[in-house]
């Protein structure tokens, strides 16, 4: 049927294998550090010092799990990208190391670690060493608020739940520019310098639409807290920010009323901020609910449509800006191989280059997970609650629960909510990564003047217009937040 079925199957197998290889260690490590060790410590000798140690361990869990996650994930994403690009260009991709090239990137990582670490003559050695570190650090620390959001505010990751989460992420995302300029300048190489300057110009230009689109989403949600934003979007695809930032929530509620599903959650609890919003006298019929959420009849319908349109535009703006921020094709001018012999990291080798490489792919992951949390509802199930209730899932759930109950209740090994949230997050994030790879396989590189024109004359006005439109359209519809 499909002539390339074996190759696609191999790619899928690689994805499944590596996702297991990524998330099993992360899960086990965070469980061991966050649950098992503190439990043993506290039960072993319930002294003050032990309790403090246990609490420290629990507090360190997010950072440890991130540290475990980042290298393995980067290895997977490199392989994923290479195989997927090979599919698009009718090739095979790496298929030698391990079964079907499964271990290719692991071998590459080992090779990179053992390569000689060269500092070129005339380079500013201190800055040259500092640049990869500064480039890499934000990708560890910047991702932390997302952890709370994507694990459904799990108690282990609550510590990363900042009230100014998205702002923190944006601040962290603006740091790598410094590292790029630093790397470019300190390499004592003209190509590197040009790459660094390009990186600075590009990042500054594209940060504006990026930030504006995320700010608009925050405006729709009424919060800077990523956990809150993620929780607001619970309950199916109609509540997601991609569907107008809650513009369709009235429809969702109306359907629920019509079906008589009185907000009885099966898996995920309803959002906590909800009771303050809903009026005391709950409307009972479909029309009443619709009227309650869309008070200006026709105008409200129109503005709901406008909101949905705008949120798609915002997603596009965000993805464009993010592509430019993390220097991916078609915005990879700072490291253009054909013009600048890979730009700012021309002179880097060995472990420093490996750190650059790692950070690039980690940034791709972080950018995708920001998009997931801000637009696609984080760890939310895309199927609405009322539809889930119609499905015959209850026996399956019950049997699963019976099997897993010793793990859940005894060892706290599995938290079902977190598990499903993580599942959906992984799915959505790697879908975004796939889109990024597809774009990489399709679009050619911009020229620098085209890049600037596109950024300043198209994206910035567009993001401002979208911001204004959302501000006005949001008044006419009752959204969440």
């Amino acid at each position, binding site marked *: 049927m499909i002539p390339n079925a074996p190759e696609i199957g191999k790619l899928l197998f690689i994805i499944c294998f590596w996702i297991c290889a990524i998330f099993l260690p992360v899960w086990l490590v965070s469980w061991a550090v966050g649950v098992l060790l503190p439990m043993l410590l506290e039960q072993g000798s319930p002294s003050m010092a032990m309790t*403090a140690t246990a*609490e420290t361990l629990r507090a360190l869990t997010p950072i440890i799990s991130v540290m475990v996650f980042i290298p393995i994930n980067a290895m997977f994403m490199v392989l994923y990208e290479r195989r997927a690009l090979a599919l698009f260009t009718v090739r095979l991709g790496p298929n030698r190391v391990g079964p079907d090239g499964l271990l290719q990137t692991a071998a590459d990582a080992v090779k990179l670690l053992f390569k000689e670490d060269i500092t070129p003559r005339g380079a500013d050695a201190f800055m040259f060493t500092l640049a990869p570190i500064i480039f890499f650090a934000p990708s560890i620390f910047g991702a932390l608020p997302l952890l709370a959001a994507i694990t459904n505010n799990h*108690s282990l990751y609550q510590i990363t739940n900042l009230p100014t989460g998205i*702002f923190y992420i*944006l*601040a*962290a995302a603006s740091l790598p520019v*410094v590292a790029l300029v630093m790397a470019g300048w300190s390499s004592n190489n003209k190509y590197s310098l040009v790459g660094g*300057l390009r990186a600075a110009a590009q*990042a500054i230009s594209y940060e504006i639409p990026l930030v504006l689109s995320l700010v608009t989403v925050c405006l729709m949600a009424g919060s800077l807290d990523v956990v809150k934003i993620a929780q607001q979007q619970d309950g199916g695809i109609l509540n997601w920010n991609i569907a107008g930032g809650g513009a369709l929530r009235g429809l969702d509620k109306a359907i629920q009323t019509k079906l008589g599903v009185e907000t009885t959650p099966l898996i995920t609890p309803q959002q906590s901020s909800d009771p303050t919003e809903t009026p005391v006298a709950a409307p009972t019929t479909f029309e009443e609910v619709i009227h309650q959420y869309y008070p200006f009849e026709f105008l409200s319908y129109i503005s709901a449509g406008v909101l949905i349109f705008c949120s798609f535009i915002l997603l596009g703006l965000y993805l464009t800006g993010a592509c430019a921020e993390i220097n991916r094709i078609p915005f990879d001018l700072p490291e253009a191989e054909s013009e600048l012999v890979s730009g700012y990291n021309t002179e880097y080798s060995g472990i420093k280059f490996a750190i650059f490489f790692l950070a690039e792919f980690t940034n791709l992951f972080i950018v995708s997970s920001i998009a997931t949390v801000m637009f696609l509802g984080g760890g939310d199930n895309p199927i609405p609650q009322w539809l889930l209730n119609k499905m015959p899932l209850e026996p399956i759930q019950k049997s699963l629960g019976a099997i897993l109950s010793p793990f859940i209740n005894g060892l706290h090994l599995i938290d079902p909510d977190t598990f499903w949230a993580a599942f959906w997050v992984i799915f959505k994030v790697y879908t975004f990564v796939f889109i990024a790879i597809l774009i990489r396989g399709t679009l050619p590189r911009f020229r620098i003047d085209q890049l600037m024109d596109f950024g300043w004359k198209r994206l910035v006005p567009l993001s401002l217009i979208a911001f204004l439109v959302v501000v006005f359209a949001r008044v006419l519809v009752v959204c969440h937040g």
Partner: protein
Amino acid sequence: MDQYMILKDYVSSADAETALFYVIAILAISLSVGVISDRNIIRSGFILIGVFGAISGLFLMLQAQFLALAQVMIYAVGITLVVVIALMLTNPRSEREAVITEGDEFSQETGAVQFIQRLQQGTPAFVAVFSFFTIYLAIRSESWTPVTEKVSTDNVKVLGEALTTVYSLPFEFASVLLLAALIGAIMLAKAEKRQPAIESAED
């Protein structure tokens, strides 16, 4: 949240805070001395980013999260721009000669005249020390009574409300100022078309 209380208590205890403060302060002071004394202007630009990072750490300790993050966000990019422009404007060779912490050559005069010349080269240091000392005396001469109230964790909301209600006029003025600065900067920096020679003479 209460499982972090022990940790939180420890971190927010006076000793830990003091130690953290001194670490950050020493970092900030030494880095800022580095900014004004590094021979290479570009390096001092990068060090300045470090200073601002340390200062934003101080802001975090003062529980001004919004400002700390804004500081990082604005200055990381802003100072990078300054560095880039410094890169484009400075000739490394001429920059190497201009070391600010070393004085000009002394004249051959002796005695009082040379002493006065030395003093006059020490003027910047004198002014700086004098201003610091004046401010310090002013701070010390006042007895402060710190309020023991806790800063609300949600002070971003307070800030936002204040900016859009009470301080909306200054806010607008600030935005007008930014706009004026933007336009002015563009007008100043816009290259005139009749001078292509300088661009080529740069390298």
